[in-house]
């Protein structure tokens, strides 16, 4: 018996050793020709698919590419920039066509990682680069088993932005803390007339998941239920009931299926007293002459919440050593202080590297400081859970129906959609 175990152990160990050798050998073969090559001689094409954060997005990427081409003159970089509204469709189209972008800047990664389409980021990026990224943000790019399949490239915190002038006119002393305060403030704002409403609740395709998450957290709940996500928890029902109440009392904008841009436009036009917003919402509104104040998002208990969103860099495995090498080199360069800082500033969102965050806090204006400070109290959506894609899609497709349907029935339906897909 003992002998059998010993034998088994030996066999197992040698098998492991052999396979480890094999794996190592394979890796060697994969990386040796690439790394030994002179960067100037590397000739290939890498493709980047990125969303448009602002009008300068293309120029911001081009700046990195220009620098990259100084070292790698023969690597052609193909950049495709698409708007957020249809970004998921474009990504899907590229994946289905087998035209995988080497570098993808997106807000979701779990289903691609789950399907084994991605490089592990610790395979591409050096330890120094990974260590330079704020750990709490970096954790968002890890799958439940801890494998890093995506690195954050931009963060945004969302807070309650309010119109100070309207607040003064309506006689509201300070930004609302509890749901009751929020209703009270909304009522006073709506009483101003002139089509002014209290609170912008964009439940359209773009932001329904963010808005729903904030209300859920405000009710003290969470999407996660053990390993699974649960849409119809008691807290979620409570949150959606409160959302419905806001809508039915006439405190929100008229169309719940508006996107973030729709409510931002209303806010910028002085027709909304409060919206949940990030840096862009604030800068859009201040550009139109709105006097914006920032505060944590009200909750049922009065304990402020805020949502953090990170977007990610994903690298698709195109089974091509040259492309892999070029991609790794490009991303190393991307995260270097010299290029990353102007790039993130172009997005008007928040940085993810420690040094850029520190620098950002030091030179921030009032608004950016509020957002950067909020990074400590933010909660994140369960982006690494493979069920999140389904839940997010279901929320985007149905959350706005809370205005006309029973919250519990609606959430049960959303839950049924998630379950049907898993």
């Amino acid at each position, binding site marked *: 018996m003992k002998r059998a175990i010993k034998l088994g152990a030996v066999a197992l160990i040698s098998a492991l050793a052999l396979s480890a050798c094999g794996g190592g050998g394979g890796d060697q073969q994969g990386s040796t020709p690439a790394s030994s090559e002179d960067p100037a001689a590397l000739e290939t094409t890498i493709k980047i698919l990125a969303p448009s954060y602002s009008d300068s997005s293309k120029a911001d990427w081009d700046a990195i590419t220009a620098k990259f081409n100084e070292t790698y003159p023969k690597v052609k970089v193909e950049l495709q920039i698409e708007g957020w509204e249809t970004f998921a469709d474009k990504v899907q189209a590229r994946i289905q066509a087998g035209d995988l972008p080497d570098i993808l800047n997106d807000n979701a990664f779990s*289903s691609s990682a789950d399907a084994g389409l991605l490089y592990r980021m610790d395979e591409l990026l050096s330890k120094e680069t990974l260590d330079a990224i704020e750990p709490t943000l970096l954790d968002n790019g890890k799958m439940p088993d801890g494998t890093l399949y995506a690195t954050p490239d931009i963060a945004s915190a969302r807070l309650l932005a309010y119109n100070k002038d309207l607040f003064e006119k309506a006689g509201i002393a300070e930004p609302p803390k509890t749901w009751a305060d929020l209703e009270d403030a909304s009522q006073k704002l709506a009483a101003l007339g002139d089509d002014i409403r209290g609170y912008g609740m964009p439940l*359209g395709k773009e932001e329904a998941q963010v808005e729903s998450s904030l209300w859920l957290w405000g009710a003290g709940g969470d999407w996660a239920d053990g390993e699974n996500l649960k849409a119809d928890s008691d807290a979620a029902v409570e949150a959606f009931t409160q959302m419905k109440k806001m809508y039915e009392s006439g405190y929100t904008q008229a169309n719940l299926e508006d996107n973030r841009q729709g409510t931002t436009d209303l806010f910028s036009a002085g027709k909304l007293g409060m919206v949940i917003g990030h840096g862009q919402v604030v800068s859009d509104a201040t550009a139109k002459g709105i006097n914006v104040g920032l505060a944590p998002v009200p909750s049922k208990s009065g304990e402020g919440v805020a949502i953090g969103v990170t977007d990610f860099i994903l690298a698709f495995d195109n089974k091509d050593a040259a492309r892999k090498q070029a991609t790794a080199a490009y991303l190393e360069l991307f995260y270097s202080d010299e290029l990353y800082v102007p790039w993130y500033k172009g997005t008007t969102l928040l940085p993810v590297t420690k040094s850029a965050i520190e620098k950002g806090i030091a030179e921030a204006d009032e608004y950016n400081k509020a957002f950067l400070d909020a990074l400590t109290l933010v909660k994140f959506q369960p982006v690494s859970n493979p069920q999140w894609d389904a839940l997010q899609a279901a929320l985007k497709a149905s959350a706005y129906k809370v205005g006309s349907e029973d919250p519990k029935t609606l959430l049960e339906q959303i839950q049924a959609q998630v379950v049907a897909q898993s």
Partner: protein
Amino acid sequence: MSSTVAPRRAGQKDRRGPTPAREALRSLPWLLPTLVLIVCVVLYPAGLMIYTSFFKYNNKGILRKPDPIGLDNYIGPAGALTFPGVPIGRILLNTVVWVAVVVLGTLILSLLLAQFLNLPFRGRKLLRLFVILPWACSVVMTATVFRYGLQDKVGLFNRLLVDTGILETARAWTKDPTSAFWVAVFVAIYVSLPFTTYTILAGLQAVPTDVREAAHVDGAGTWARYWHIVLPLLRPAIAVAALINIINVFNSLPILRILQETPGYHTGHITTTLMYEYQTSLGPGVSSALSVLNFLFCLVIIGIYLAVVQPTKEVA
């Protein structure tokens, strides 16, 4: 055409005479381009669609299981007909209403328009040119103009309706599934009119005047002449226009896509737009399944049309 030409040539140059097989072979070079086109752009994609509908994909379009999953994409928990939250009965009804109302509306209006454009009057050419304009614009562009025009805050059509007192306040027409559906019906009729009108106008010009004059002499009134003489002679033109419109309208994605601003599975979908919705949220498997059903549905509608109207009697 090649089949009528081929035997004669064969008779002149070849004494053995044509057999059906030889004839088919001879016509092949002329048929080949069309056959290649049909195989490449119709049969292959259709086959791929049916194949895809039996596999499981996620919403990113990644194949999740290597083996076929039977009818799960049709009637499984996340199937095209059974996905929770999809008002499928209403959507099927919408599809029938969409096709019937748009095609009938277009035909009736086109008959009137064509009759009018066939009258001799000053500026007829110019008017005919204007009628064809909507056809010259892309459907996406036309639908976008309507969408902006009906926007609740800045839309010009809304402004017109309010300023003329037809409406009390501006409405967000395209943000309510039902009103957006009817706006889309209107736009679909608007863009289908030019083609249909012209087809019928061509038919009208082919109606011989002597037949009409003879009927007039025999004492038939205007209405009787139209009903018993003109309309039967227009039958081939109407048949072609109706058939092409049915297929076209059934598959018309852009108008509804652009004019429906409500996200998700609402009650203003038709099966074609639902297919698109599935494609983004459930992936190509389920979307293909619905596409297969859509294809069968389209066949049934055309079958009913052919059986009831028998339009080919005169066409062939």
